């Protein structure tokens, strides 16, 4: 139990440190570590020290299956999102999308008055 607690603490600390660094790749790796921390936390929630077993006939030597199912689901979700984030990092938004960009579309920052003039000239 202590080992699990230490592991969660270590993973969370490393994850938070990486998330707070400025780069996108470190952010992604930080979230992977945070996800691992939560997975270990979920697994250790299945320890039957302070409550009754989920299945009465199971006996105390059986682990609670529900947190394992939780962890499995969480792993799948975080894996998918990590892949999407890595894809976003790879393209960086530079790749043209399927539709042609709207030439007059102006969503830029609010305090750039030159943009208006630029568009009038085109």
């Amino acid at each position, binding site marked *: 139990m202590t080992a699990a607690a230490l592991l969660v603490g270590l993973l969370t600390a490393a994850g938070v440190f990486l*998330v707070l660094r400025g780069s*996108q790749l470190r*952010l992604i790796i930080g*979230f992977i570590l*945070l*996800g691992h*921390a*939560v997975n270990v*936390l*979920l697994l*250790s*929630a*299945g*320890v039957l020290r*302070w*409550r*009754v077993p*989920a*299945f009465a006939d199971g006996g105390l030597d059986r682990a609670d299956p*529900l*947190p394992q*199912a*939780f962890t499995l*689901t*969480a792993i799948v*979700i975080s894996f*998918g*999102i990590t892949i*999407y*984030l890595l894809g*976003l990092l790879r*393209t*960086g*938004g*530079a*790749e*043209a*999308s*399927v*539709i042609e*960009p*709207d030439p*007059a*579309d*102006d*969503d*830029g920052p*609010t*305090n750039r*008055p030159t943009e*208006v*003039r630029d*568009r*009038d000239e085109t």
Partner: protein
Amino acid sequence: MTGILVVLPVVGPLLAAAALLAWPARPLLRRVTGLAVSGLVFVTAICLLAVVRSGTVLTVRIGGWAAVVAIRFAVDVFTGLMLCAVALVVLGCLASAAGTGQDRHPFFVPLALVLAAGANGALLTVDLFNLFVLIEVMLVPSYVLLALRGQARDVRAGRVYVATNLLASTLLLAGVGLLYGVHGSVQLNELVGAARESSRVAAAGGVVLVALAVKSAVVPVHAWLPRSYSEAPPVVVALFSGLLTKVGLYALIRVFAVLYGGSADHQWVIGAAALASMLVGVLGAVGEHSMRRVLSFHMVSQIGYVLLGLALFTHESLAAAIFYLVQYILVKTALFLCTAAVHADRGTDRLVALGGLAMTRPVLAAAFAGAALSLAGLPPFSGFLAKFLLIKAAAAGGAWVAVAVALGVSLLTLTSMLKVWGSVFWGLPGAARPAATGWRPQAWATLPALTLAVATLLLGLAGQQLLILSEAAATGLTNPTEYLAAVLR
């Protein structure tokens, strides 16, 4: 039969999205499919609300598994009301996307449908872990929708959004794990009042509440919302504002009511966050210069009003909060759809570049005026009734500070709406590109916003029905025995 009705809001959009992705269809067919499925979900939500309005609670155990492992959905009046409002938002946004040509990307409609399915599922579920999963189902398409245009600017704006929501999701999952660890169950019916009895459960539930507060953009964890919403495509912002934060808010209300149930030790935290949200949101909007940024800051402010009703935790205040939430979803979506129409028409939503739209687009101006006055809380719109009920409940509870803040913030909201009105709809046409000619594209872009604005007027004039429903929903929150007895079955 009712079982099919209960799962339809989740399964229908998911199947339609899968079909659209599997068989790439023509744009018109995509549009029609999206609108037809959303319409079907809206009709289903109305039917569900009609069934549960007498106080019965519908439940379904998917696949008939044992209660411990089954995915269970339940509909009470609160859920039914939220399902109706969310379905109306999705319908309006898809119609507006079709009208402004934002749904040209082949993935837009399928992603919006998956988003709707996740939101509906999060409203229906009675299990906190399934709540996490369904919120993820709702968030993943939103990450993609933000970056769909593939422009570097969108991806940059999306980064803040994705990072914040990932962090909140991780926190939510940790909270659910802690709750399971200390209590042995994360099903709402087994968690009733648990936080009042055990401080360990209260601490674990606090982690869940903080995560949900980040997702609903409550001050002090609100800063991501104005930053990311102001950069996203306008119709997408309307969809997000109607679904994402509101589902977070619904879950916040539900979890607080079930877990803490009016525990005086914890109410002050919600109350302080509510007052701070109201003030910070409205003051943040004062200095902003684009319609989307002004409206995004007002979202934070309005979320504070709903939380105020939760913090007081009396029957009247909860009914007022639910009334406020339902009408506010429609009002805010109407305002964002007006922004989308302006943006599609003039190519920008910056206040300085716009002007004189009241002359060229009178119907759009009327729709915006109605929704803006409702947001500020002027009669005869629904916002007035909502604020009146909330302030009455606060006064009855002796929370005079809250009354003063609510009134002052309303006044500031009105000022801010007047600023937008003055620079966008009045005055001389700005430097933005001239308005498109022809009534057809204009009509299709304006119609969804106008419909929602008329709906808020009708809710203001005939608010009695919604008030009765809100009071029934509040009874389900203050006295959850019926909800839980039904869930146990």
